[in-house]
C-alpha cells in the first residue's frame, strides 16, 4: 500500500504539468505517467546509480573532508539510517557524513550518500532538527532528483559521448565528464519544485521516525534569521528557495505537523554527541 501511494506520489510530483491538463482524475492516464517516469529513471539502473554516487561523494570529500570525530560520524549515521528505514528504499547502502566545512549546507548524492556540514550542525538545537534536515536529503535520493538532473544534462555534459558508454566504463573519459557534471550540480542546485517536495515528504519521514515533525521548520527559521549575504549561507541560499517561501509551503501541512509535534526532540542526546 505504501509502495502504491509512493508510486502515485512520484507520478504526481514528476508530472505536475500533465496533471494540471487533465480535465478530471483519470487513473489510467496516471498509471501511464507513472510507467513512463519509471522507464526514464530505469535508464540508469540502481547499481550504476550507486556507483555514480560513490564517485560524486569522493569528489565532495575532496572539497571538504570528514570532521575527524568518529563518535559524531556514527551518531549521524544512526539518525540517518533509522530515517532511511522508514522509506521505500531501506536497503540502499546509506552513508551519512559530516563534512569539515564552516558553510551551512547539506547534500544528497544518488545511491544513498548524504552529507551535512559542520557549519549547519553547529546551528542546530536538537536531534529532531538534524532528523528534519537528513530526511529532506533522503527524499532527494528516494525521488532520484539528482540522478534525473544528471540524466537530463548528460547529453550536453558528455558532448557527443553516449550515456551508455559513460555508464559502462567507470574509469573512462566519458564517465569522468559525467561525474564532474554530477559534482558541479551542487553549485547550481536542483529545481525549486524538487526542493519543496523534499521539504513536504521530509517532514513526513521525520515524523515516521518518531521525531517532533517541526525539526525541519525550526532549522528553516534559524536560516531565515541569517543574512543571505553571509558567505556561510551564500551557496545554500543560491541553490534553494528562500527559507520564508519554504516555511510558507510547510504552513499548509500544519495538521500533519501538529499531529506529530509532541514526539521527542532529543536535544540532550544531540548536544552530548556533537561536542568533541
Amino acid at each position, binding site marked *: 500500500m505504501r509502495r502504491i501511494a509512493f508510486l502515485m506520489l512520484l507520478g504526481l510530483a514528476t508530472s505536475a504539468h500533465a496533471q494540471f491538463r487533465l480535465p478530471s482524475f483519470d487513473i489510467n492516464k496516471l498509471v501511464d505517467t507513472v510507467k513512463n517516469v519509471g522507464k526514464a529513471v530505469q535508464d540508469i539502473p540502481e547499481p550504476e546509480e550507486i556507483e555514480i554516487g*560513490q*564517485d560524486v561523494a*569522493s569528489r*565532495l*570529500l*575532496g*572539497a*571538504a*573532508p570528514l570532521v575527524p570525530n568518529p563518535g559524531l*560520524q*556514527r551518531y549521524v*549515521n*544512526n539518525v540517518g*539510517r*533509522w530515517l532511511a*528505514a*522508514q522509506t521505500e528504499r531501506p536497503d540502499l547502502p546509506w*552513508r551519512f*557524513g559530516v*563534512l569539515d*566545512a*564552516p*558553510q551551512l*549546507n547539506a547534500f544528497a548524492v544518488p545511491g544513498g550518500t548524504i552529507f551535512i*556540514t559542520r*557549519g549547519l550542525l553547529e546551528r542546530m*538545537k536538537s536531534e529532531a532538527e538534524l532528523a528534519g534536515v537528513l530526511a529532506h536529503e533522503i527524499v532527494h535520493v528516494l525521488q532520484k532528483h539528482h540522478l534525473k538532473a544528471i540524466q537530463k544534462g548528460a547529453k550536453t555534459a558528455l558532448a557527443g559521448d553516449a550515456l551508455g558508454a559513460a555508464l559502462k566504463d567507470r574509469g573512462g573519459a566519458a564517465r569522468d565528464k559525467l561525474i564532474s557534471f554530477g*559534482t558541479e550540480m551542487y*553549485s547550481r542546485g536542483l529545481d525549486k519544485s524538487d526542493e519543496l517536495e523534499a521539504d*513536504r*515528504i521530509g517532514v*513526513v519521514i521525520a*515524523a*515516521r*521516525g*518518531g*521525531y*517532533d515533525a517541526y525539526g525541519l521548520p525550526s532549522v528553516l*527559521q*534559524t536560516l*531565515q*534569521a*541569517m*543574512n543571505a549575504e*553571509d*558567505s*556561510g549561507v551564500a*551557496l545554500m*541560499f543560491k541553490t534553494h528557495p*528562500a527559507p*520564508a517561501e519554504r*516555511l510558507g509551503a510547510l504552513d499548509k501541512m*500544519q495538521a500533519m505537523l501538529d499531529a*506529530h*509535534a*509532541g514526539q*521527542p526532540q*532529543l*536535544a*540532550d542526546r544531540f548536544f552530548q554527541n556533537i561536542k568533541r
Partner: protein
Amino acid sequence: MRTLLLLLLALPLLAAAEPATLIRATELKQEPATDAATVATLPENAAVEALQRKGGWTRIKAGASEGWVRMLALRFGGPGEAKKGDSGVTQLFNVARTGTSGAQVTTGARGLDADQLTNAQPNPAELAKMDGFAADAEAAASFAAKGKLSATAVEYPK
C-alpha cells in the same frame, strides 16, 4: 526570578531571545495549545521576541505580554534585513586551511563554495573512512529505541 527561570528553560532550544515578526494577526495563547486561553490578539507585522519552541508553538514576548503563538506565524529577519555583514566563518576557515600546514596548502583551496565544488578532486581515502562509520538497520533501530523513538505510520502528502 521567574523570568530568569524561563530564560534558563529556553536555553536548550533557543540560545537567546530572537527578534521576529508575525506574518498574520495571531492569538497569543497562555499555553501552547489551540484551546488554551487567549491572552491577546496580536496584529500582523507585530514585532515580538521569540524565546522558546515547543512542538509547533513558540513562546514569545510582545511588549508587556508573554505567551505562545504558532511557530509558523513567526518570521525571523528576512534575507538582507537580519544580521548585517558577514559572520566571517569562511574567511577564518580559509586562513586555517592555507596556514602553516604544508600538506593542506598543496591540496589547494578546499571548501564548499561553488568554485571549490567545481574543481574538487576525488578523495577515496575519506570515502573508505565514511564506509567504516555506516550504521546497519539493526544498530539504527536499537539507537532509536534508546531515544524512545517509535516508528509511526504517516501518509505522504497528497
